[in-house]
Every structure is written in C-alpha cells, then in structure tokens.
C-alpha cells in the first residue's frame, strides 16, 4: 500500500477530503499530529512533575530530602525497568504511567497502595500536559466534519499514558465527543511502532483494510507500518511545524547559554498557537505579552517569598489586588502542590477607609497627619478631615481654640504659618481625644471585618498591593497593632517609590517587587513613569471603599456612590482596559505552566523582565504610549486646590504624542536622568 507525504496540514487534509468517501474508518495519531506541544521535546514536561512530587514530599514532612533530580531519576529507573520487562514479552518496549509512577510514590512516601496520592500526581501531570498541548485548528474542524459524516474515528497513540488519561486530554481539548475511541499502547503494550497495534485495532473494531485510512506524522509508526499491514496511510511532514519546533529548541539552547534568554523562552512557551492565536486588539496583546508577564513575575516572587518566610495567608488589597488574586488563582496551582500554597483572600481596603480607622487607638500624630498633604490638591482642615474620616463640625471649637478656620490653608505647600497652627492642634490632647472618639466606630467595624476574613488566625501574613508608599499597610498596621493576636506584616508592593519613609519594624515592612527605591535600579525604576497605568490596568470593577461602618449584623462596607462623577469616569476607564485585563488573565495559566515546565526562579527571569520594562516603559513606541496611557485617573485622597506656583514635573509618559514622535533622544534623556516620579 502506498505512503504519501504532505508538507503541510492543509494539503494533507485537502487530499483526505478527496478520498475520505472511500473509507469508513479513520485512525489518527495523536501527538504531533492532532495535538502539538509548545515545547520541542516532550521529556521537558517530566521535571515539572518531579518538582511537584519533591515539594509534596517536603510539605508532607518526609525525612529524606528528596530533590527533584532524585525523583526524576527514580521515575526514569522504574520506567526503564518496566520497559525492559515488557520487552521480554512483547516486541514493543512500552511502559505504563500508573504502574511505574505508583512505584515511585510508594518508594518516596512509603505509603503502599495510596491511590489518592497517585491520582493527585496524575492530575498534575495531565494538567501540565494539557496546558502544554494545543489541538491543531484544521484537525479539529476536519474531525468534527468526519464525525458528522458518520465515520469511525479512532485515536491511536504510542505513549506511556493509558487511554483513559488520553481521553482526559481529549476532553480538555473539546474533542472527545467526536471520536469513537482512544487507544494507547500503554494499555496493551502493542504499539504502532512494531505494527502490532493495527491487527489489534482490526480485530477490536472489525475494520476492513480496504476501507481504513491512517494518518500521522511518524515515518515508521504512521507511514511504514500501516503500509506494510495494507492500510492506506497519509503522512504529515509539516515544514511550518518543524520551523516552530526549531525556534522553541533554539530558545531552549539560548537559555542554557545566556541567562537573558530564559525569560524569552518562557514567553515563547506562553505564546498562543493554532486556534488560540486569533486576531486581538492591541490592548489585549499588551495585556498578554507585557502586563501578564510582569504580573507573573510579581506573583511568583510573592509565592517564593511566602514559602521562604513561612507565610500562612496572603491578603490582596483592593482594588488592584482583585486582578492580582485572579492571576494568582489561575497561575499558582500549576506551580506548586495545593498543600504548599498559602491561602489567599481579597481584602476590601482603601486609604480613605483605613485613614480614620487607623486613628482609634494612637490618635493622629503629626507624621501621619502629613500624609494628608502629600496630594498637592489638599490644603485645609476640610481636606485633613476628609482623609481621616473626621467630622469637621465637631472639632470646630478646637480649631477656634487654636485660632484656625476651617478654610484656612494648613498644608506646608500653601502656608507655613497655617502649618505651625496645625502642628499646635495636633499636639493638643483634647484634639487627640476627639480624634479617637470619632474614629473608634470605624475601627470597631474594621476589627469585625478582619476577624471574619481570618486575618488574625495566621502568624505571618503577606499583604499585596500595587504601591507606591505603602500607605494602606501603614494605616492597617496602626489600626490593629494594639491586638495581641496581630500577625506579622510582610508587605509586597508591585513597586515601592518610598516618597515618604515607611515606618519599618521587625513585624511590619514593605518590599517593592519590580522596583524598590531603597535600592535603585534603572530598569525597575521605569515603572514609575506609568504608575497610573498600572493602577488603572489592574483595578477591580467596583468603586473604592469609603469606610467601615458598624451595623446591626456587625459591620458594613460603604463604597463610593456609583452615580458619582469619579465612579462614572472609572467605569469608562475600566471599559477601555477590558481587553487588556482579558489578555492578562489569559496569560496567567500559561505563565504558571511554562514556569513549572522550565523550573525557572524569578532570579532567572529578571534580566528579561528588565529588558521588557526598559523597552516598554522607557523606550516605548509612541503608539504604545497612546494606547496604554490612562484617560481618567482620580486620586481618592486628593483635594481640588492648587498650590501657588505649583508646576508638576513632566515625565516621559506625560509628553504629547508629537513630542514623543519627533523630539530626538527624548526617551534616552529621561532614562539616564535618574530621578523618577515618586
């Protein structure tokens, strides 16, 4: 029987369409035919499972320190032993995954017969496989069409995974319902490679050679053997697939050779292929390739630090934390076993809501009160009272006592004399008593909310926020530091500008992940060019929290009025960034899978991340700035005043598009000029 080769899938399927009416049964190879892998070498997936098992063993308290290399060696040994044993009875030296993996697990965990453990590891192995394989779009269409024509379609694979595992992969790809059966050499030890699979199929499904068509990519298993058996076979020798494989292999080699390419390899494995790779708007592409990767790095750092510092719980601060947590939920399950991942919770917080609640026990010291004057629009006592949730009418007598008026400028940016009076007011014990009295109900409600969220159940908690000064964490710490069951605060910010020094202590610190001004680096600092962009891009689709309020049921969260102009503007901005967020979330699971497969740590990826930051933020194309620049940004702490002679410093991303396009060396000048916005 003849063997025909095709250089691309379209020409193969075109020919198959012409002849398919002569055949009732079609057998198809699975891997590298219907499914393609993002990696060039399928063995690259095995170390991910070895790392998973090693982490499970560590979390389970196994005394022997199992490294992933040990686990991989054990797996290879047992697999080889099974292949040798099979080879004594069959022509094909096949192995069966559940058999040898069970031996591996029994050996490591000393728990003979633990099916639960095997199922957990199998689920992970299949999840990684599933994340790394892509069904070819043309095959999917063709299989559906042939199924509709009533053809018998049987998937045949020479692999260590038994057919029920392959069925799970087919189901994930949405193909299982269109095929008659899935056959694996792991079930029978009769493979296509020796040709023994074909008589077996003939007998099992009562197939007639003359009405049987086989298609696949292996010249022996899918070409020579079926032809020898007398079946018509079509063989795929896809040039384009060869090219994609070679490119993936090339980046793998580069990554071994130069650290810079490790991150690029990671992104190569994340790239959507076939049916996933459809036309997308520019914002989706930025979300997928740029922000998604940055958040992947951020998430992975938090995870690494959480494991290092024995952090039991992670709290994502609203509102950017909504995106971070969603990313976390998609990416992290592929990185570590469930029992090695800290719990995560979304916490409704805001500077506005915590400002007042944080004053209930220590009052309002001057250093903290000065935070109200950071936004240049805040000028008088009305602004101070707004920031710290104080009722100005009730402190009016105290203001009069200090010769102050509610509309008198007290910010040092507006009036030095006013600020001196303000400092006097702060030092007044009566004022502090009034502050504590007014803010106590907010603090009480906050305690109830935190208790409900299990905040005080953990010894160490990670607090995750976008940045930049760590004000929310500072306020939260002040609000709970009087409690004996207060956990240790480990703060992780996307970037820490440290425009105002953070009151660091052993049980309360912040750390900038992508950038921390306490150790300046050129690449990381570029994130400060586009702070508003990162806030807008990651913002949750709910208004900001205004205060915690006591209620009959305990507490109540009060949000900004949805009909207010600022919330309406935010909704417009959220709609604009909808595609960007979609790109970010689509990237999450692929980041988790690719990191697990490659076994990369954040330090491996940092050089590529630096490159991305510099190319996208310091040297962006004008059209990129045009797309990414925020449109509506409202600072919830900021007032409406303007200090005399105030001229905000203009940074790269604030330049008009014509200037970005035509002024020579503009980007380089900003990049080398060290000060960044704070």
């Amino acid at each position, binding site marked *: 029987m003849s063997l025909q080769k095709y250089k691309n899938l379209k020409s193969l399927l075109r020919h198959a369409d012409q002849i398919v009416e002569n055949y009732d049964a079609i057998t198809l190879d699975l891997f590298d035919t219907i499914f393609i892998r993002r990696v060039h070498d399928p063995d690259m997936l095995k170390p991910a499972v070895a790392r998973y098992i090693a982490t499970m063993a560590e979390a389970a308290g196994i005394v022997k320190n199992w490294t992933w290399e040990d686990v991989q060696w054990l797996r290879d040994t047992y697999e080889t032993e099974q292949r040798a044993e099979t080879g004594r009875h069959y022509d094909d030296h096949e192995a069966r995954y559940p058999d040898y993996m069970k031996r591996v697990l029994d050996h490591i965990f000393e728990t003979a017969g633990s099916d639960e453990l095997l199922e957990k590891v199998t689920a992970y192995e299949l999840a990684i496989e599933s994340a790394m394989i892509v069904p070819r779009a043309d095959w999917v269409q063709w299989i559906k069409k042939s199924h509709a024509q009533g053809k018998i379609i049987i998937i045949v694979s020479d692999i260590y995974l038994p057919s029920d595992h392959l069925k799970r992969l087919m189901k994930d790809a949405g193909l299982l319902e269109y095929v008659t059966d899935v056959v694996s050499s792991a079930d029978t030890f009769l493979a296509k490679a020796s040709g023994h699979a074909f008589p077996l199929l003939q007998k099992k499904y009562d197939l007639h050679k003359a009405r049987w068509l086989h298609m696949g990519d292996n010249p022996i298993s899918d070409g020579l053997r079926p032809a020898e058996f007398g079946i018509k076979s079509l063989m795929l020798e896809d040039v384009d697939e*060869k090219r994609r494989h*070679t490119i993936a292999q090339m980046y793998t080699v580069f990554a071994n050779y130069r650290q*810079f390419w490790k991150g690029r390899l990671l*992104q190569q494995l994340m*790239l959507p292929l076939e049916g996933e790779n459809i036309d997308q708007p520019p914002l989706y592409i930025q979300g997928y390739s740029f922000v998604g990767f940055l958040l992947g790095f951020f998430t992975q750092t938090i995870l690494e630090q959480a494991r290092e510092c024995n952090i039991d719980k992670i709290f994502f601060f609203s509102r950017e934390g909504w995106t971070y947590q969603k990313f976390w939920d998609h990416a992290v399950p592929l990185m570590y076993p469930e029992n090695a991942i800290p719990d995560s919770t979304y916490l409704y917080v805001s500077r506005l809501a915590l400002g007042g609640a944080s004053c209930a026990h220590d009052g309002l010291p001057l250093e903290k009160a000065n935070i109200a004057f950071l936004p240049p629009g805040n000028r008088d006592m009305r602004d101070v009272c707004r920031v710290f949730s104080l009722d100005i009418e009730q402190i009016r007598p105290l203001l009069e006592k200090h010769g102050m008026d509610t509309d008198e400028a007290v910010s040092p940016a507006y009036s030095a004399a006013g600020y001196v009076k303000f400092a006097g007011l702060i030092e007044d014990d009566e004022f502090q008593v009034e502050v504590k009295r007014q803010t106590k109900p907010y603090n009480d409600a906050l305690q109830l909310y935190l208790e409900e969220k299990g905040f005080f159940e953990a010894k160490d908690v990670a607090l995750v926020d976008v940045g930049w000064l760590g004000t929310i964490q500072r306020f939260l710490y002040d609000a709970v530091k009087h409690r004996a069951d207060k956990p240790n605060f480990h703060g992780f910010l996307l970037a820490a500008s440290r425009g105002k020094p953070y009151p660091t202590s052993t049980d309360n610190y912040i750390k900038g992940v992508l950038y921390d001004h306490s150790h300046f*680096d050129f690449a990381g600092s570029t994130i400060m060019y586009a702070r508003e962009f990162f806030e807008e891009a990651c913002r949750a689709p709910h208004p900001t929290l205004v205060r915690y309020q006591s209620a009959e049921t305990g507490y109540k969260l009060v949000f900004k009025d949805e009909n207010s102009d600022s919330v309406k503007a935010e909704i417009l901005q959220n709609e604009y960034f909808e595609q960007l967020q979609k790109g970010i979330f689509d990237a999450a699971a692929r980041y988790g899978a690719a990191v697990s497969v490659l076994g990369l740590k954040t330090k491996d990826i940092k050089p590529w991340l630096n490159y991305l930051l510099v190319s996208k933020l310091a040297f962006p194309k004008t059209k990129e700035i045009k797309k990414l620049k925020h449109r509506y940004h409202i600072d919830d702490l900021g007032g409406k005043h303007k200090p005399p002679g105030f001229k905000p410093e203009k940074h790269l991303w604030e330049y008009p598009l014509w200037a970005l396009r035509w002024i020579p060396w503009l980007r380089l000048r900003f990049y080398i000029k060290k000060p960044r916005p704070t």
Partner: protein
Amino acid sequence: MSHKVTDRRYDMTGESVLRITKHSFISKFAPYEDFAGGPGWKCLVAASLMHYFGGIISWFLIRYEQKLKATARSFLAKFTRRQGK
C-alpha cells in the same frame, strides 16, 4: 488594528527579535542593570535567521534531513578515527 499575539514568524508581536536587537545596541551605551550580559550577537543573528528565514531552513532540513544526518555521522566517524578515539 488587530494582530495576533504570535506573529506568522512565531515571534512575539510588539516584542520581536528586531526590537531586542535595537535594545541590545542601546544597552552598549545606556546602563541596563542586571541585563546578565544581554542577548549576545550570535544568538541575535541565529534568532533573526530562524524567525525571518526559518521556513526555507526548515524545508531544507526536512528535505535533506536523512542525507545531512548521514553526512554528519560519516564526518564524525572519520574525525574520531583520525583522533584515534
């Protein structure tokens, strides 16, 4: 205008190998911290070739794979014999 995330050269849209090359050049005189030595010109040339001429290279590899392997094998055999290994 819509594009695919993976372009037809299996490169990243908006972050192509040419952009890496450009920044590799800038990094020669602007400080890129922790760039870990950068991409290296050999890698950049190879990556550019694979992304831009990969179709022809792959066709050639598939067409002459067996002959190339046989040639490589015989060359290695001769080489190792000459080395006395």
